[in-house]
């Protein structure tokens, strides 16, 4: 298709009919308050949905849906389109019956194993923090080559919310935990798989790991672990155990299914990296992005998201010539640790082919690499932790395509 002509020329009538003929909403009485006690988006926004990638998984209960990053603004992901990753299906659990147990791997690990109701957890000192959650397999389909058309499918296993909950450290302290011996924590979910992961004690001790019930001002959504999930900032989503029912403090790692059979990164020498947890520095341009068609030549605001599991984003550069030349983008505030950061940059599209890329740097000085740099170390069979620079090719016809370069 040719670039869509979206100019807004003056009709021969001397004006735009959308102005000259007063629209009905300006000449009538509108809808009353509280048509919905809990409202929803405009009917014109129906295209903004989370979606499955056809053929990606064999069952829909051990599967993924992707957030529509191409249509989102700022850093908050609306909870309605938060990406999903279930391992044995999702549940809407009665919170009055939900319990959290904290125990030790042996009798001496804790002075006192404990049981908490939701009522009790919600009475404890809480914190509220903005963090991204990214599945370790985000962008995983693209390790070898281009596999999917849009940023929804390439990068949509990420979302960002304000979480509210109790630092896990507080609960372990209440139980009289032995933080010297107990260097590994097991988190266990209440779903069918009773999902388990070994959680890094360093993050628990720093107070960052939360036993969370709140997400974007309301309770967690059922798809995201209602009524209780672990928040493990900077760490891949699989560790943010949903429907959290149990915490165990231990002196050994747990070797769970999702740290021995999955979420292991296959290196060229045939070794699997286990316990790869941190989501490293990464970014992606969401406007323009794959599967879109630019309306016209002229001015555009290149916009995208950057994040790092190691802390704050300090800088994002953008290239429109496939990485030969870069310009520094504006970062929207606030720039928070282990949180999405929105970046923006002016661009005048001259109608010629362009390759748009972004490249993030975090506060540890870690710079996002290219596919070539990543594959040189990790090969292309790793599945997880693909944080390569993404390339979008803008064609002369305005159509934007997902490409990889060499």
């Amino acid at each position, binding site marked *: 298709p040719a670039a869509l002509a979206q100019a807004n020329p003056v009709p021969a009538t001397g004006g735009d009919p959308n102005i000259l003929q007063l629209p009905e909403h300006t000449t009538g009485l509108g809808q009353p308050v509280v048509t919905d006690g809990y409202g929803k988006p405009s009917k014109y926004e129906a295209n903004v949905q989370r979606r499955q990638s056809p053929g990606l998984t064999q069952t829909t209960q051990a599967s993924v849906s992707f957030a529509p990053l191409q249509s989102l603004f700022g850093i908050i992901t609306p909870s309605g389109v938060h990406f999903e990753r279930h391992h044995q299906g999702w549940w809407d659990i009665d919170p009055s019956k939900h319990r959290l147990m904290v125990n030790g791997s042996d009798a001496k690990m804790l002075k*006192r194993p404990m049981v908490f109701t939701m009522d009790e957890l919600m009475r404890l000192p809480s914190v509220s923090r903005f963090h991204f959650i990214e599945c370790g397999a985000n962008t995983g389909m693209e390790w070898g080559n281009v596999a999917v058309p849009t940023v929804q499918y390439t990068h949509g296993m990420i979302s960002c919310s304000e979480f509210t909950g109790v630092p896990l450290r507080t609960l372990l302290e209440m139980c009289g935990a032995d933080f010297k011996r107990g260097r590994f924590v097991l988190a266990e979910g209440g779903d069918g798989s009773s999902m*388990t992961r070994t959680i890094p004690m360093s993050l628990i001790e720093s107070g960052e790991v939360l036993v969370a019930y709140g997400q974007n001002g309301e309770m967690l959504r059922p798809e995201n672990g209602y009524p209780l999930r672990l928040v493990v900032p900077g760490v891949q989503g699989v560790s943010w155990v949903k429907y959290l029912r149990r915490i165990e403090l231990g002196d050994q*790692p747990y070797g769970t299914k999702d740290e021995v059979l999955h979420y292991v990164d296959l290196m060229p020498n045939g070794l699997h990296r286990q316990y790869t947890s941190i989501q490293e520095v990464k970014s992606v341009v969401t406007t*323009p992005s794959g*599967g*879109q068609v630019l309306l016209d030549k002229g001015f555009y605001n290149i916009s995208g998201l950057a994040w790092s599991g190691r802390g704050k984003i300090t800088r994002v550069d953008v290239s429109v010539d496939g990485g*030969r030349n870069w310009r520094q983008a504006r970062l929207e505030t606030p720039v928070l640790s282990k949180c999405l950061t929105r970046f923006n940059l002016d661009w005048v599209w001259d109608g010629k082919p362009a390759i748009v890329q972004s490249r993030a740097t975090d506060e540890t000085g870690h710079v996002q690499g290219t596919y070539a740099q990543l594959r040189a170390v990790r090969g292309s069979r790793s599945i997880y932790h693909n944080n390569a620079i993404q390339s979008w090719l803008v064609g002369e016809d305005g159509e934007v*395509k997902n490409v*990889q370069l060499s």
Partner: protein
Amino acid sequence: QGERFPGIGRTATPLEIKAWDIDVRPDFAGLPAGSGSVAKGQDVWEAKCASCHGIFGDSNEVFAPLVGGTSKEDIATGRVARLTDQGFPGRTTMMKASQISTLWDYINRAMPWTQPKSLSVEEVYAVTAFLLNLAGVVEDDFVLSDRNIAQVQQRMPNRNGMTTAHAMWPGNEFSGTSRPDVQGSSCMRQCPAETKVSSYLPDHARDAHGNLADQNRLVGPQRGAVTVRQTSE
């Protein structure tokens, strides 16, 4: 402790901990005493597992195959040779499993898929033994138990096939470093760059994800591309 937060929480009872503390670690902490034979395991398998995973654990229907891709040699070395074959497409569970505890724990907590936690301890031992038998790790007449499981671990085909030497675990519990393994460039002008398009979606896959026009907002800087052939009306 109780004094800091009066009224919050109570001591968990032994019965409660027993009901929920089901994890089994690589050092076999948490493994209940018991045993199960390959033969019994085959019965369990055929009754409760084969419909999804296939009679020989090699079905790709609802999930990747559980067994296949390992060899006698691998059992000796503890490294699955095929994992170094860059061209080998899939990976079975047995090719990856470095720990037998992982299989026991996961089957016990999560399988069968629609009835997790319905298996008896004996059934879990047995069906684990059966899977290991399919993979040639144990003999047909083997009885897996809490007493011999540590020895079986020493025969797991990929027991040496893992590493924790990387920078992606926060903390120093594992053998990792703090220096990331891949570092990008900060070059801003006339940088050495690969700018040849070498991978893109072929035209015939254009509509594999549906009509992208319906996956973008109706206004904004752009529209979604129409990727589904229009039918004449």
